[in-house]
């Protein structure tokens, strides 16, 4: 009986260890830090080059698009546009199609990396929430 339990225990340990190891190794390149602009920009050196999901709000009037291309430059601030203080502001660049909801004041989450020249957004890395009541109304999906 004890032998059986030892066997069981050993198998379980090996399985758990193997699983944890695999999980750890895949998590290394699978994860991104979810951060607000303030958290990152208060100490930008620390975050440079790390995979980030940057949360903020588009600075009104900052969206620039190069003529006849899909290259965008815009600024993202920490606080919603209606707040008095902007919080930290970061310059961001992106190439590709932006969501319909991406516009001034929109709440955005950008996937990409911070560099010394600003935030480089990955392809398809812009997720934008509509400034209005979008959240409340996305109802039926459960």
């Amino acid at each position, binding site marked *: 009986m004890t032998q059986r339990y030892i066997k069981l225990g050993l198998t379980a340990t090996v399985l758990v260890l193997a699983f944890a190891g695999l999980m750890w190794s895949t998590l290394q390149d699978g994860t991104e830090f979810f951060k607000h602009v303030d958290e990152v920009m208060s100490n930008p050196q620390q975050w440079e080059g790390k995979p980030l999901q940057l949360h903020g709000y588009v600075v009104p009037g900052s969206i620039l698009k190069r003529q006849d291309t899909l290259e965008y430059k815009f600024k993202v601030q920490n606080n919603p546009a209606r707040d008095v203080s902007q919080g930290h502001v970061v310059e961001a660049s992106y190439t590709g199609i932006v969501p319909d909801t991406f516009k001034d004041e929109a709440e955005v989450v950008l996937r990409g990396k911070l560099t010394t020249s600003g935030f480089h957004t990955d392809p398809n890395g812009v997720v934008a929430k509509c400034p209005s009541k979008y959240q409340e109304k996305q109802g039926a999906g*459960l």
Partner: protein
Amino acid sequence: MASLGTFLLLAAFVTCSYAAVISVAGARQRSRRLIESGIGAFYLICAIMTAASAVLINAFMTGDYSIKYVVHYSDSVQPILYKLTSYWGGLDGSIMFWVFLLSIFGSLAVYVNRERHRELIPYVVATISTVQMFFLFLMVVHKNPFTTYLTSAPTEGEGLNPLLQNFYMAIHPPSLYTGFVGMTIPFAFGIAALITGHLDDSWLRAVRRWTMFSWLFLSFGLTLGMIWAYEELGWGGYWAWDPVENAALLPWFTATAFLHSVMVQERRSMLRVWNVTLVIVTFFLTIFGTFMTRSGVVQSVHAFGDDPILARLFIGFMVVILAFSFGLLIWRLPLLKARNELDSWLSREAAFLVNNWVMLFAALFVLFGTMFPTLSEAVTGNRLTVAGAFFNKWMTPVGLILLMLTGVGPLLAWRRSSFANIGPQFLGPVIAGLASAALAIGYYKIPLWPSGLCFALCGFVVGTIGQEFYKGAAIRSRNSGTDLFTAMIGLVGKNKRRYGGYIVHVGIVLICFGFAGNARKLDEQMLLKLGQETKIGKYTIKSNGVKLVDDGQKQMTTAYLAVFVDGKEIDGLYPAQWRYRRHEQEPTTEVAIRRTPAEDLYAVLGGFDLADQSVTLQIVVNPLVNWIWVGFGIMALGTGIALLPERSFAFALAKMPAEAAATTVALLFIVLLSGGTTLSAQQGMGGDENTRTSFYARNPFEKQMQHEIVCTCGACGHQTLAECRKDNCATSHEMRGTLAAMIDQKMDHDQIIQAFIAKYGGEEMLGAPVDKGFSRLAWLFPYLVGATSAIAVGFAAVKWTRHADAPAAAPAPLDSALEERIDDELRDLD
């Protein structure tokens, strides 16, 4: 009216508590009268909830804007269908809809089983009533859909989100809820069995069908969600590992595991604790999924916002569920001892066991991945999120292992397989697998990992299933003297669950086949000026500019793209953006898809500039994606066969030869199926009454003309006049009117065409003769299945009448081992 609704909810709550208490009391005192009273109260809940639903639907239909919920989720111009679906458009209504469904299912389950499982019923009633009480409590204290405005009420509603005004989205939530809610029934029976100690296999028999039914709707709901994401959200894919999607996937995994492991218990009396656990976990996950997406615990762009009160209530309820169910389970462990042990790892029960582990692992993994951001924030303080790539990396091997087990399981015998048996059993399927691998990797140059392997396994599984059907049918035809085909129908009829299950597996194979197509997915974004071209895959796409049309309800911007293959124009694509009046901030993308069996060409209009006619496009080539939807169709067919009622079948068998019964049932099923699709096709047109009734063809000629001329509204993706009845299309209405007038003037075909060209300019409005057939084929798939089966059934009917009087040929024991095995399995699996 609103106060009536609130009153009904309160009444339902009181009735629930009565039903729960009186049932338990009745069971403990063994009082028939008390138990009956509990059952009566239980039926009453169903009636009350129906009345409450009627009140809410009435409020939507009549536009009672004194009720907040009605204001938030509807407006007066909404088509009737969407007014109806606004019922479950928001959280409050969803919870109410949940209770409504649960009361119906519960009553049905109790009604059906009240004699057969008499000892379980009072506790079933009590369990379901308690669950209902929780949701009713939630509504009464926190999320009452009948809340009214205290001050002046608005005179017009805000309207349902246009993204949700889509046919798939209208039926996706109820389907998912049906699946979720249905899982409560097995849970209630499980708990009842634990409490009463009647832990033989009889409670499993009561819930098997329910689980299958709920599983079907869960799958259906997931598929609809995928179709919706693919067609409406316009990002080129169908699954993104979003928390909301994952929440529905979790119970699907455990329910699938249960459907398999239940067979092991029936055959071998093993895994008894495991089965009870799976039932509990599945139910728990349905609640947990709702909690996860609704309470704001998991942050995602798609999750529905913070609600700490809701979170606390849910957490309380979940703790109670877990503590109570597992407490009971531990208490009853001595009664749940397995009567057999695993004889060999080379047996079917071992394959099922591995399947279960993998399924459970998949569920746990998805749960872990979904909760990871929350967990990491709690542990490290840094919020780490995992991207879809992480899920894909892990779930691809999991999926492939499951696919392989699908093929291996049926080849192994119960108890143990000898190595001598295994060789010939595996030979055919392995050859099939190798052949498809050679085709995929050698000919199509698809990388081995993971798509090539997936194709190989698809071949292997199809080989297994084909072999099972063939061998079974061959033996049956020898024994009964009928031909192979009749024998096959008889075989399915005799053992619906087993062969229905195989058909489900065929569907799964097709779905995996579709997933594997992702290996060759192309996805590009570009900006095209007027007349510019771009190349993607074998296609060249040329922009012919962009047009803006306003139909009064919305502004529609449509890009005109021409598709060339090898220098020949083969089709046009018309992706569009719509801006609804009340929702200018949330434009909806109307994706243009050119479907073929091999691949979809998928175009999204990302942006446009009317001044210089440039368009920003996302073009995606999605190989094999349609096979996912077809695969689901087959899965549904298989589940339908497995679900066919036993008694009606036995009754029919008594009167007719076996094959006739199978034929009848198959026919009935086909009729049901095609009836269902016709209905959905009609609903799919949606639209308001005016457009739907506008100028239906009065004679064949008008019908023909309506099919030849294309609507120029620019929003429907160039549908013909006969088809463009969706939404409020004034253009097609007007064009049909013009057509009708011309026909009244006795103009002939060519004159009408000329007149239309003169009026609308160019040949834009002429029906494009290019192949649009597949898009219809994909959706008309059930019809095709129906038609083929009808032919098959006719063929079989002729055959068996011819053979009816022929003396049964003496069975030739060619392969006695196999025959014994099949016979053995045929006897008692179903």
